[in-house]
């Protein structure tokens, strides 16, 4: 086996730890497992009863796949599979406050709609007639000329920020606002929209720290 090894076997107090790679194909793991048990690790794996703990890394295996792993290991009579675990997926349950940022590149043109669950950083323009829906914050590194709807799931603590703010319409949660009747901006550069008392407000991006609970705080000096 010249290629990269997908399986690492470690001895621990309770028995053996099988660390399986989480990036490769699942079938590659099964093949290698079979190979290791039959060919390379015979002396280690023979003898008294050994407890096996299988760690899948970040791979999410189905019950069927877990059963396949058990079947392969069970071929050696002295091996007993105690557990098959994956790392816990972070932020799986607290989706609403997910700090993750999805980055996308491209131009949202007239007639095109982009929907995203979470926060979104778009590197490119949103043209008039284009629409951006997002359950979290929207950051546009480019010109926002179309419609942007942040907090489309109902969150009101989200913002819409753009390098150049020239939207047809802005929406945060249920509040709809259209410039320039409701707010007038200066050069429209580096601005963001947010909700204050149910009203849409626009401000310079440098003022955003007043809104956020966790701005950077420098100490000393």
């Amino acid at each position: 086996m010249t290629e990269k090894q997908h399986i690492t076997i470690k001895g621990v107090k309770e028995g053996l730890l099988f660390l399986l790679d989480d990036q490769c194909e699942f079938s590659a793991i099964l093949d290698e497992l079979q190979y290791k048990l039959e060919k390379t690790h015979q002396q280690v794996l023979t003898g008294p009863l050994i407890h096996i703990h299988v760690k899948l890394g970040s791979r999410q295996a189905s019950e069927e796949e877990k059963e396949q792993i058990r079947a392969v290991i069970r071929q050696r009579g002295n091996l007993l599979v105690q557990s098959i675990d994956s790392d816990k997926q972070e932020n799986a349950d607290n989706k609403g406050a997910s700090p993750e940022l999805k980055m996308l590149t491209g131009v949202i043109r007239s007639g095109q709609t982009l929907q995203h669950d979470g926060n979104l950083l778009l590197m490119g323009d949103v043209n008039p007639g284009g629409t951006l829906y997002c359950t979290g914050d929207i950051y546009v590194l480019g010109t926002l000329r179309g419609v942007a709807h942040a907090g489309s799931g109902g969150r009101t603590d989200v913002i819409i920020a753009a390098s150049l703010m020239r939207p047809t319409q802005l929406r945060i949660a249920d509040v709809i606002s259209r410039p320039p009747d409701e707010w007038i901006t200066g050069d429209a550069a580096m601005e963001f929209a947010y909700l204050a008392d149910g009203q849409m407000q626009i401000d310079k991006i440098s003022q955003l720290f007043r809104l956020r609970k966790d701005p950077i705080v420098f100490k000393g000096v």
Partner: protein
Amino acid sequence: MGDAIVVTSGKGGVGKTTTSANIGTALALLGKKVCMIDTDIGLRNLDVVMGLENRIIYDLVDVAEGRCRLNQALVKDKRFDELYMLPAAQTKDKHDVSPEQVKDMVLELKKDFDYIIIDCPAGIEQGFRNAIAGADRAIVVTTPENAAVRDADRVIGLLEQSQISAKLIINRIRPNMVKTGEMLDIDEICQVLAIDLLGIVPDDEKVIKAANSGEPTVMDPSSRAAIAYRNIARRILGDMVPLMSLEDKAGVFKRFRKFLGIG
């Protein structure tokens, strides 16, 4: 193997047919073998602009339905030996041909011609899908109006989905109105649409006159629009031609006043 270019815009009345006729003729002027296809079935115009209406025997739908061979339907131009046109049918509509049929025709024509210019109908429905089916690249025509730019943007989005690269022609620019800020300027349009600019064409009354007499504007070198179309044709061939200046040729008196600083 030739190059198939579709001329499209989304919005009607911005000058697709005029642009197709003039680019086709300009390429023929430069010695290329060109075939123009009118895909605006039911509302054919290209033949009128080219002055070839009375020479039509068969049309695109006849070819699609097998009533004639493709080269029987081609109409040879009266001015050039190597310029041909495949006219649209006037009695049928867009649903009478399929994108596959148009694609087959374009593929067949590409064997014999250097350039295939496909004149697309307005809109983004069946007619548009027919027109872009066989195209290798696209020319998007717009005018300096918000509505036209909006539609051009929509069409560029659809072309991107079909993986056809597009270049832009801004048609019917009025330099004076741009200068006073009443008309969108070129930079603004290019910024929104974010595609390469192939050329700009100033608004010229001679274009209307030429279209009515069935003689493409490019034939008349005294027209500014003709020069613009010739420049565009050279850019299509890969030449580097600078954008034409939109400044009016100032009269002696005006230049004198400018010199004195009161103009």
